[in-house]
């Protein structure tokens, strides 16, 4: 076994556009400290689509929000680590400089299209706003750009619809609007946090396809967050599996599906929903529940649910190590079958 630090092994030919290193984000709530993200490291190369997968509550959204420093004020705090975007450290950047990056160089799409748009502002104004802020465009120029973006995300009658309000759009249409808004300033990195989870299955595929087409056209990198490995298989080049606020496995997509090393990843694979079985139903959930992140975790966080857990697993936390070229896993029994 080859114990290499994760950031060393991704020293590939191109310089990464985003480097997250040992990120730690905690929530300070009335009933204790939640270690939502607890030492996460990964990189995104320019133009790459990186998937981040894991069950609900494993820290995917908090990771994304930490990168843009959009955590709920006074509740969530980044307590350690580093986030470098295009070589620049974001965590120590003054708020004003950070705002210049948000929506401009790095844009984000959220999970809930029904609540993520402002109900009292027109679609056009909401898209135009980013263009006005970051490109100094006049309102009329920005609104023209907004109409252009709506056409790009294939909203019929784009010119007329810029004056409409979110409640006049369906969920799928609103997510198209969100994509239009996020891409309006041609960001170098697009963070999409479960962009299709709240949508109908048929709409999900359309939205994903649209997003990746536009990504191809603009050449931006994408961080696609999902709890659905099926989505990853169809869209990403590289994937990171998260569990309990940590990265437990990382590999090229084909490699991961060919030879998953972590029992948690194998569990996720067994539960990939398959279309064609009537409703898109989970086949086999991983038994057990995610650990309480307010309590200290001794040993491997997955041990209580792991079919091959050993005494060592319960005593010592497994480090993230390279087991095959470019394929990392944090498991004492990586690749072993139950």
């Amino acid at each position, binding site marked *: 076994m080859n114990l290499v630090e994760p950031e060393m092994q991704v020293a590939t030919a191109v310089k990464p556009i985003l480097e997250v290193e040992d990120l730690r984000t905690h929530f300070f709530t009335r009933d204790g400290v939640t270690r939502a993200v607890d030492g996460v490291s990964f990189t995104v190369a320019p133009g790459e689509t990186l998937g981040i997968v894991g069950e609900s509550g494993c820290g995917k959204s908090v990771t994304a929000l930490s990168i843009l420093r959009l955590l709920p004020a006074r509740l969530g705090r980044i307590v350690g680590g580093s986030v470098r975007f295009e070589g620049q450290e974001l965590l120590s950047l003054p708020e004003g400089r950070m705002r210049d990056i948000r929506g401009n160089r790095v844009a984000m799409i959220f999970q809930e299209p029904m609540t993520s748009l*402002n*109900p009292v502002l027109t679609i056009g104004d909401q898209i135009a*706003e980013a263009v006005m802020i970051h490109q100094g465009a006049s309102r009329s120029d920005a609104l023209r750009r907004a109409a252009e973006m709506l056409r790009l995300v294939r909203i019929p009658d784009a010119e007329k619809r810029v004056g409409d*309000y979110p409640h006049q759009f369906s969920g799928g249409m609103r997510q198209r609007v969100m994509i239009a808004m996020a891409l309006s300033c041609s960001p170098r990195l697009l963070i999409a946090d479960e962009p299709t989870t709240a949508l109908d299955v048929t709409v999900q595929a359309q939205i994903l396809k649209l997003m990746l087409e536009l990504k191809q056209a603009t050449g931006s990198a994408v961080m696609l967050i999902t709890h659905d490995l099926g989505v990853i298989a169809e869209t990403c080049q590289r994937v990171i599996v998260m569990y309990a606020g940590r990265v437990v496995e990382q590999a090229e997509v084909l490699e991961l599906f060919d030879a998953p090393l972590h029992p948690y990843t194998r569990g996720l694979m067994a539960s990939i929903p398959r279309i064609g079985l009537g409703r898109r139903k989970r086949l086999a959930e991983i038994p057990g529940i995610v650990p309480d992140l307010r309590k200290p975790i001794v040993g491997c966080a997955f041990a209580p649910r792991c079919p091959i857990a050993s005494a060592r697993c319960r005593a010592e936390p497994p480090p993230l190590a390279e087991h095959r070229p470019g394929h990392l896993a944090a498991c004492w029994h990586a690749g072993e079958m139950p």
Partner: protein
Amino acid sequence: MGAYIARRLIATIPVMLVVAVCVFLLLHLTPGDPAAVLAGDNATSDQVAQIRAQLGLDEPLWRQFGMWLWRLMQGDLGESLFWGKPVLDLVLERAEPTISLALTTITFAVIIAVSLGVLAAWQAGTLVDRLIMGFAVLGFSVPVFVVGYVLIFVFAINLRWVPVQGYTPLAEGVGPWLERLVLPSIALGLAYVALIARITRASMLEVLAEDYVRTAQAKGVATRPMLTRHALKNAAVPIVTVVGIGVALLIGGVVITETVFNIPGVGRLVVDAIQRRDYPIIQGCILIFSAVYVLVNLLVDISYTFFDPRIRY
């Protein structure tokens, strides 16, 4: 929209009718002979009889009400017993100071209260928030006359920054007019500010936790437009509702404020009328105040469409 306003205006008729019945009964349910009550303690029986005849008090109650209502609908609020003049004329003569006081108070109160509420919500849990909310609790619980006398004592008598009492008509210049309105507006508006600041904070807190506020921040929107354009507009409906409901607070406060600051307005007219048992004035003013309140709240309802495009009438 026009149809909605018409419908709402028609809907105010039953409300005003109930008010009218109550106002009418105000005189007739007072213990004893209304004529004797109106005539006062030292009246001769002739004077009592004259008043009775003048007011038609010999007629059956329902006929009296009918006649009274009929005259009301023609804009006749009756005649003052003390002044011997139409109540409407008396009110109009004293309308300017009261309208001036009310409008300056509402304008400044809303601006200050909304700013404080937004600030408190944005800084929720911090010292700033606690200071503002502490002020709001205090402002709501200190009576108008106490605030008034303290203000007069400190700013008019001790510091001599502003005149002590009275009213200068707007015709004599904005400066002098405003100068004498400062202290009464503060006294009158304090509870109103407290009320609006609290609802603004509560409404803003809810909105600031919404997903679309985070979307705005993810776009790079700066703090100020995030608070106003994105959040406040969404928080507006409960706020304007309370601005409207709070007018009731102002109406009660106007009567006291005008007395404390010796402002010759409608509030003073009412206080004097109460002391003189000048029932037609009391009745007329209650009706006018009620109509104002109902109309203000109609305006508030209509303003919802301006803030929220989902509300359509």
